[in-house]
């Protein structure tokens, strides 16, 4: 039998208001899923929606680090990617999607996600250094480490 081959997209959401705003609820992977499906419906119509309905799933999304992993069948990753590009808001919050990594296996995506988290950690540490240790970022560091563990735990 022919194996069903997938593509894995690691994406990042960049919000218009960079400060964590309390008036918005934290997004879940279900919100992301419906946002993608809406965008596919709008841009590629019924045919597009049908193509991806079986294979699309949001494997992971962290509202804290704003990164997530999507699985989609290999034939239609272009379609989902462009649908991501055309998204301008999720749950009426303005944002933009940016794909960080496109991989053939989930392992590579996990690697890329952890690398990205590591970069964020370094950035935080630099910021602490810059402010002379006056700002407290310990919560952020814990959250990133938590997200690392979550990413490692994802199973295909």
């Amino acid at each position, binding site marked *: 039998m022919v194996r069903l081959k997938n593509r894995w997209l690691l994406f990042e959401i*960049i919000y*218009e208001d960079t400060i964590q705003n309390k008036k918005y609820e934290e997004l879940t992977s279900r919100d992301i899923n419906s946002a993608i499906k809406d965008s596919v419906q*709008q*841009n590629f119509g019924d045919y597009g929606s049908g193509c991806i309905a079986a294979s699309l799933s949001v494997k992971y999304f962290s509202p804290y680090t704003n990164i997530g992993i999507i699985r989609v069948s290999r034939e239609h990753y*272009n379609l989902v*990617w*462009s649908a*991501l*590009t*055309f998204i*301008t808001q999720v749950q009426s919050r*303005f*944002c*933009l*999607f*940016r*794909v960080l990594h496109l991989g053939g296996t989930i392992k590579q995506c996990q690697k890329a996600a952890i690398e990205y988290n590591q970069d964020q950690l370094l*950035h935080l540490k*630099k*910021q602490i250094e*810059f402010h002379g240790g006056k700002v407290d970022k310990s919560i952020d560091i814990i959250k990133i480490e938590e997200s690392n563990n979550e990413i490692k735990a994802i199973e295909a």
Partner: protein
Amino acid sequence: MFYDLNIPFPTQPNQVVQRNELRKRIEILIKLGYQVIAFNHIVTGKINPNKTNPIKTLDYEIFDPNQNSRIEQLTRITIILEDSNQNIGLKSSNATASYDIISVQPTNEKLFQNACGTFEADIISLEMGSRLPFYIKHSTVGLAIERGVFFEICYAPAIRDASSRRQLISNAQNLVRVTRGKNIIITSEAQRAMELRGPYDIMNLATIMGMNQATAKECISTNCRSVVMHAATRRNTHKAAASFEPITSLKLNDLWKIGKEKSSNNSNDNNLKRMKFSEEEEGDDDNDDDNNNNNNNVKKKKKSNKLRKLET
């Protein structure tokens, strides 16, 4: 290296709101991984020759001092052509000389033909978010490709609303078909920070406009570089064959070029700003004057003589 050669510059840059918006856009651009951007100033019709470049580039220091990400900032003018009788005077005008890149936006077929065939511009921009008033023909486009002029696709209208998205995809596919994917650049034209997209997202977007991945990548990297180089040769060289530099900028071990030993460094012609040659080819009056003034100095230069031989 990724380029975004169309960031609209605010019309009233002194206003705090517009200035903050611009800053935000640049911060996002840096985050997305662009390294060269060009601020765009749009002019309709004839250019006022006395008006100089209103674009002021921003200091790097205002951005996060932790990041040592440097972004190169260029300036660009887009002239919207409306009247076919209009004397645009792209080359002679002082106004255009103060910009790094010149682009034109023709609004009818005649002007599009002229833009492809003769105008001294670097980019031909078309309003792709709405229906084009003429067909893009291969014969016309071929002229532009031969001259090394590039066509621009701006993706921000496609993100803004659905009807422009339809038009843009249709127009872009047309353009890609006619040019066979050559000489196209993709830029943003983003009015707001949230209309920007990452370079790899744009490459994917270009694949649904009928390009393959390799050409899509060229559209935001090497092709944009060609535009910048094309602009630089237009501004700084004579017929793209030779450029002028003051003698004072010569390095010590290059001094033999002007017939001097390394030891005798103190040159008398420090005040010489430019050298000119090829008097026969240059028809303009002011250039002739220049030639007369500099003739004596020019003759000292072996380098220029060599180049003159090459030209004739």
